[in-house]
């Protein structure tokens, strides 16, 4: 714990990347499967949705989990997916949605 504190105090914070996406933009979640502490659920990888809002800029959890600084920080979005785009046999209303928080480095424009 001590070494992480020292590292984050002495390493100069890098600038976070600017937000690439705006509310309403259509995005696709990258379909990659790295190991580690990943906060992108499997069920949305490779799926497309729409930016619902920008939540702010946060330390990258994949880095933080390794006791590193979390830099560069990542813009975090809420992405809205239609249920029928996630599950082809979805039984509810065609308008039902799931909204998931996803960091920018997991998103690509459609």
């Amino acid at each position, binding site marked *: 714990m001590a070494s992480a504190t020292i590292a984050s105090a002495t390493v100069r914070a890098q600038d976070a990347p600017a937000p690439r996406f705006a509310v309403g933009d259509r995005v696709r979640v990258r379909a990659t499967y790295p190991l580690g502490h990943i*906060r*992108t*659920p499997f*069920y949305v990888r490779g799926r497309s949705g729409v930016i619902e809002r920008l*939540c*702010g800029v*946060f330390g990258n*959890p994949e880095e933080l989990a390794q006791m590193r600084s979390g830099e560069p920080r990542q813009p*975090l979005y*809420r992405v809205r997916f239609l*249920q029928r785009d*996630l*599950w082809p046999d*979805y*039984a*509810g*209303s065609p*308008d*039902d*949605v*799931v*909204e*998931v*928080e*996803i*960091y920018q480095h997991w998103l690509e424009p459609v």
Partner: protein
Amino acid sequence: MSEDRGTYQPLTYFQLMEVSLRELLVEKGILSDAEVNAAVEDMRARGPERGAKVVARAWTDPAFKARLLADGTRACEEMGLDVPALRLVVVENTPEVHNAIVCTLCSCYPRMLLGLPPDWYKSREYRSRMVREPRAVLAEFGLVLPDSVRIRVHDSTADMRYMVLPMRPAGTEGWSEERLASIVTRDCMIGVAVPRLP
């Protein structure tokens, strides 16, 4: 552990790690036993009444409701509810949209407003089915919604925490905030129930 009469089990790996870390912190004078106990008691003392108060205020004060939906954390602070390290997103139920909350990856939960999560919230079954067949799950909770109501499921995967602002039921006109808060249950704020008159 005191409830474990006659069912003693050896400590699991994580329990052992917790005890070791806690004892080390106390031994090195970083924390005292009293501070650890106070933090545990504080956590236990928090319950869904906090969230219910916020909902009742939003039902009676439209300006507060607007602030709550725009910035949940700040609006709670305004009520003297400290929500440290918590970015609160409040999602509003309407006649057209019903919201429900889940954390598919672990068990993220707005503890500062709702206290400790119920066991079912942390179960693999709820976590996996709530994003796959939310209508079936809600029906098992006794909440059957027509297809004309759109369901929005919120998966708390990262830094945000969510609370559902339920609809104020008809028949509560003129009620005080305290009385309104009494019908707002934990499950209403998770989104697996709606407030009912007693």
